[in-house]
């Protein structure tokens, strides 16, 4: 089903990581830099708590941490959101929703993996239904480690993401677009027939323009 | 002995009482009897009472029949001929009605085996 599969497993990850090396913001034009600056100054976070990390996201909006001063606020629907925070472990069941929500977000869009569970399975490393590595299924732009990371760490992660956006580095969404077959293959391996609809896959393969 | 009966007042009183009695007998039969023929007979009795009343009240004692015969050339002392003529006519008509009624009743009985006026309910359909 998912054709265009030139590589497999680790090789692909390597290639994907290498593809973004060596690009710098200095190469951006003035207009692009302005656009990038605007984008990093306003990040709408999809209010979607997948696991225990969601508890740590809430304080972000409160008076104590006040993420709004960085332009970070919540958004109710994926159509309006720029950032998806994978907050904690992902079950197989949740993964499908996460993928669907991610595909419904409008580019440019970014993913932050929050906590060890999302990054490498953490304490659920041998659970039968927990996703070990989120970046096998959707592209992750920023990893915030810890179990659990404090809100300050999350803000740190956001700031790093903003920095990355400002530099004009290619986001994870571009990786997703280019390696859609690999991602879909991985997703299928976990989800089996219970895959989310192929709208985005078809869109990318139809050329994805206009 | 019974001459007082000849006085017009008493005589007419008798006629009136009698015919009214007859009338009410007829009316009773009409209202209370269920057999078709009895009802028709009661009707005839009612009619009869009216004829009797008419003829009775239109005639005074001593008057003769209004027939110009046997040398009678004038109308003196004769009863008023009109009521009698009318009564005759009415009797004929009454006859005709009665005959029709009886024939219908007989046919009805033949057809349905029923002669009870209150059991005639073919037409009550609503």
């Amino acid at each position, binding site marked *: 089903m998912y054709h265009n599969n030139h590589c497999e497993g680790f090789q692909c990850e390597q290639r994907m990581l290498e593809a973004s090396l060596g690009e710098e913001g200095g190469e951006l034009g003035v207009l692009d830099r302005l656009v990038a600056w605007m984008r990093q100054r306003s990040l709408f976070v999809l209010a979607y708590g997948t696991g225990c990390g969601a508890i740590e996201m809430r304080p972000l909006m409160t008076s104590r941490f006040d993420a709004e001063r960085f332009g970070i606020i919540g958004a109710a629907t994926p159509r309006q959101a720029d950032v998806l925070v994978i907050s904690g472990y992902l079950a197989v069941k949740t993964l499908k929703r996460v993928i669907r929500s991610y595909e419904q977000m409008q580019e440019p869009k970014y993913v932050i993996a929050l906590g060890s569970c999302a990054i490498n399975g953490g304490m659920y490393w041998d659970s039968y239904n927990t996703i070990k590595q989120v970046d096998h299924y959707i592209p992750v732009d920023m990893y915030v480690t810890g179990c659990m990371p404090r809100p300050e760490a999350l803000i740190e992660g956001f700031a790093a993401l903003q920095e990355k956006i400002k530099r004009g580095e290619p986001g994870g969404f571009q990786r997703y677009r280019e390696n859609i077959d690999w991602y879909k293959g991985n997703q299928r391996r976990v989800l089996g027939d219970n895959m989310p609809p192929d709208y985005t896959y078809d869109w990318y393969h139809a050329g994805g323009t206009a | 002995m019974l001459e007082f009966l000849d006085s017009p007042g008493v005589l007419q009183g008798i006629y009136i009482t009698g015919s009214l009695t007859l009338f009410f007998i007829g009316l009773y039969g009409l209202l209370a009897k269920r057999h078709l023929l009895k009802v028709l007979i009661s009707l005839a009795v009612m009619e009869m009472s009216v004829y009797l009343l*008419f003829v009775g009240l239109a005639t005074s004692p001593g008057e003769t029949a209004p027939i110009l015969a046997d040398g009678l050339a004038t109308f003196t002392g004769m009863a008023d001929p009109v009521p009698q003529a009318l009564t005759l006519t009415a009797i004929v008509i009454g006859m005709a009605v009665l005959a029709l*009624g009886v024939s219908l009743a007989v046919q009805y009985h033949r057809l349905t085996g029923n002669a009870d006026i209150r059991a005639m309910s073919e037409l009550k*359909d609503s």
Partner: protein
Amino acid sequence: MELQLTPVWFIALPLLVAFASPLWVRLQLLMPLLFAVPLLLLVLAISLVPVVRAAPLLETIVIAPPLGIHLHLDAAALVMLILFNLAGALMAAFLWLGDTEPYLRGRQPFILIMLLITGCTGMVLTGDLFNLYVFLEIAGVSAYALSALRRDRGALEAGLKYLIIGSVAAVFFLFAVVLIYLQTGQLNMAAVASDFAGIPAPMQALIGLLLLVGLGIKAELFPFNFWVPDIYRGSDPATAALFSGILVKAFIFVLFHLVFLLLADPDVARAWLMGLGALTMLVAELVALRQQDLRRMLAYSSLGQVGLIVLALGFASEATTAGALFHMVNHTLVKLLLFFVAALMLRRVLSLRLGDLHGIGHRMPVATGLFVLGSLAVLGLPPLSGFISKLWILKGFAAAQLFWPIALILLAALIEAAYYFRWIKVFYDTDPAKAHPGIMAGPVQGAPVYLPLLLIGGLLLLFGVAPFLLEVSFVEGAQSLLAREATLEQVLGARL
């Protein structure tokens, strides 16, 4: 020998023709004659219009009134004559042209119909009370026999009921005549009228009530009209058309003729008659709401219209009287039309129950269309003639500033509409689940039978659009009906 065009012919000709019926049977002229005689008389009546307009015709039989019997043909009576003969001719045409049941085509119905028309004509024409009784019984007997004509259970039952109740009415009437004669020694109506005021008041009341009950039963007034639906239901629809179209009209005419003639002051009777008329109308319309049989429904509708006519005549102003006369004409035509349609439906579906007539409008479009036309006319909806006559009556009441009859008449019309349109809706029902296709399907009727129906429809429309054609007749009729003094003078003056 020159044949004189006198009112006697209206009575004599049908009688003669009726009694010579064996001859017509042999010559196979029954049906043509049944049609031709009323037609001839109709032509005669119409030709008499200018004559009567000049002065009422007074035809003395043997001896001059008050001793002798006389026929009195005034404008009102002429209207009724034209109506009766027109209705008779239409009825005959319907029987002749259609695929009529055999019991309506023989000698017996021929005689009976002729006698019925004769009786009604006689009642309208005669100037003598006892003669009136005779004609009343002639009409009555022929009606009893007619309603029992089919000789099945329902028809016999109807005939018997009709006979019993009709005889009671006749007894009451006869009683009144007897009392009148005993009190006044007169039988001539005009003579009685001039002496009537001299009768003691209690006796007047008794006579009045006897007359009211006797004629009320015959003329289908409210507390005395319970028999009507049964009779109409049991008779053949075509004969019911005659009862509703001719017989009732004759009795209403007689009732009011007597009232207007006998009472110097019609106010005495006004309250009674208007009250009874209004009651008749409202009760009948209300009861009709629930009817499930077309004939019963038409019977109640007939009662309602009778109530309206009595209400209008009872008021006795010129406009309402003229309107009522016009309404009589309309009602006769309409009821002929409706009962004829009912007859046609009965022949086709073999039932006239509401449930069996679902969707008949799609199978008998012309007949149902005519039914709709008739309904509109009977409801008094323009542009049909029923509207004009109702308007005339209502206008009479309005001009007299009397508003309760207007309210009642309109209310009754609304109730009437409720059931007529219910039937129409059922006729045009498109729900196939309710329709009974093919059950009890009788033969399809030929086209000619629709001719008299279409003619009636045309007349209804014509009188509705151009009522001025008839206006003079009705106004003169009303005037002659109300002109007590002039009539007395004319009749009694002829004696002197």
